[in-house]
């Protein structure tokens, strides 16, 4: 009887010159079956989409300078460039408004409103957030994550695909998925971060035998 198995796939450093779907085929194509789910790290999808910038390329606005001061130090939005990068995508007034609403909601003990409204703020990784040579870059979240997942399924013939944001702090979220996937269930499977740390260079994880095990359950 087949068991659920998580298989990390090692790749070289992927850049904006790569197509993530072709990279998956190149490095994992032989190992992907029709019962498997292909998971790919969101930051790598964003990098292959060219969705990166550098602090040197940004001109912080007064809104970014103001808001970043109120974000706890561990967040990507705590740096003026992290905040500005979110404003570049979502618009400075949208982020500003989201922050005000988030602060009001927090007063009523409802957390996370800021990041729910400003998705760019939620998905952006500040410098140091990604492995070299992108450690000096700010990496935005991926664009059209659902479409990317669908393309992966069409190209690889897998049962499903997801674009996931997972870290070592036991946090996992599925940002995009192919049709029929249950993102919360996949996130639970990925909770122990099978992508490993940056140095392991395993941005692809195959969940083997997912379909047959789902049928059994």
């Amino acid at each position, binding site marked *: 009887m087949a068991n659920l198995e998580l298989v990390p796939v090692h790749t070289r450093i992927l850049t904006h010159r790569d197509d993530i779907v072709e990279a998956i085929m190149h490095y994992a194509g032989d190992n992907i079956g029709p019962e498997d789910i292909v998971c790919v790290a969101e930051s790598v999808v964003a990098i292959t989409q060219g969705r990166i910038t550098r602090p*040197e390329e940004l001109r*912080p606005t007064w809104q970014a300078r103001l808001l970043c*001061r109120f974000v706890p130090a561990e967040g990507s939005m705590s*740096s003026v460039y992290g905040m500005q990068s979110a404003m570049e995508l979502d618009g400075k007034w949208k982020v500003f408004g989201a922050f005000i609403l988030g602060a009001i909601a927090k007063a009523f003990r409802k957390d996370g409103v800021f990041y729910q409204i400003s998705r760019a703020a939620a998905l952006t990784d500040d*410098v*140091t957030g990604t492995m070299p040579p992108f*450690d*000096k870059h700010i990496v935005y979240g991926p664009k059209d994550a659902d479409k990317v997942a669908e393309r992966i399924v069409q190209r690889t013939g897998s049962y499903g695909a997801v674009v996931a944001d997972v870290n070592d702090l036991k946090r996992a979220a599925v940002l995009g998925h192919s049709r029929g996937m249950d993102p919360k269930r996949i996130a639970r499977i990925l909770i122990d971060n099978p992508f490993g740390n940056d140095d392991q260079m395993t941005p692809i994880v195959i969940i083997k035998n997912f379909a047959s095990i789902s049928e059994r359950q």
Partner: protein
Amino acid sequence: MYFYTFVNIIVTIIFIVAVLFVAFRIFAWKQGDEHIVMLPKKRTPFEVEDISFNQVTLVSDIPFVNKGRQNGTIMDLYPRHLLPQEQFDAVQIHSWTTDLADERHDGYWKSVIIEPRKGGTVRLRLILTAKTGNIRKDLVGFPDMNIDIVYQVVGRSDWHISKNRLILTAEELQQAMRQ
């Protein structure tokens, strides 16, 4: 009448904005920022790490600390040795640095976050290669050499580049070569 009401509203708005601006500046001042500095005076003396007939590798560890009240990120850090050929032309010099806590051997500085009141150590390597083929002979007359540690830091406010200087003195080099 309406004019004075309008003026009053404008003045009130300006006053409120000014108060908020001052309050924010005070808040930002109290919150502080990163203040990462190299401590070249506390560095270890240069030592010979490796030596061959035509080449010597010297190392020195330079501590750094974040004296500020906020996290700071060292985005890049590199050495700049300053020895013009007009002053001394008998050796070729290559210098590079690495974070001792996450040592690398490619000369690439991996961005690192330094928390307030914490620090680390930069390992500086100098590789001196003899032009005639005999390093001991070619190092005769080596002068004091300035080395700048250049680093790019970002925190709550704009990124900036700083540098701190250390000197490899002729005596220190001779001392290292004798060991």
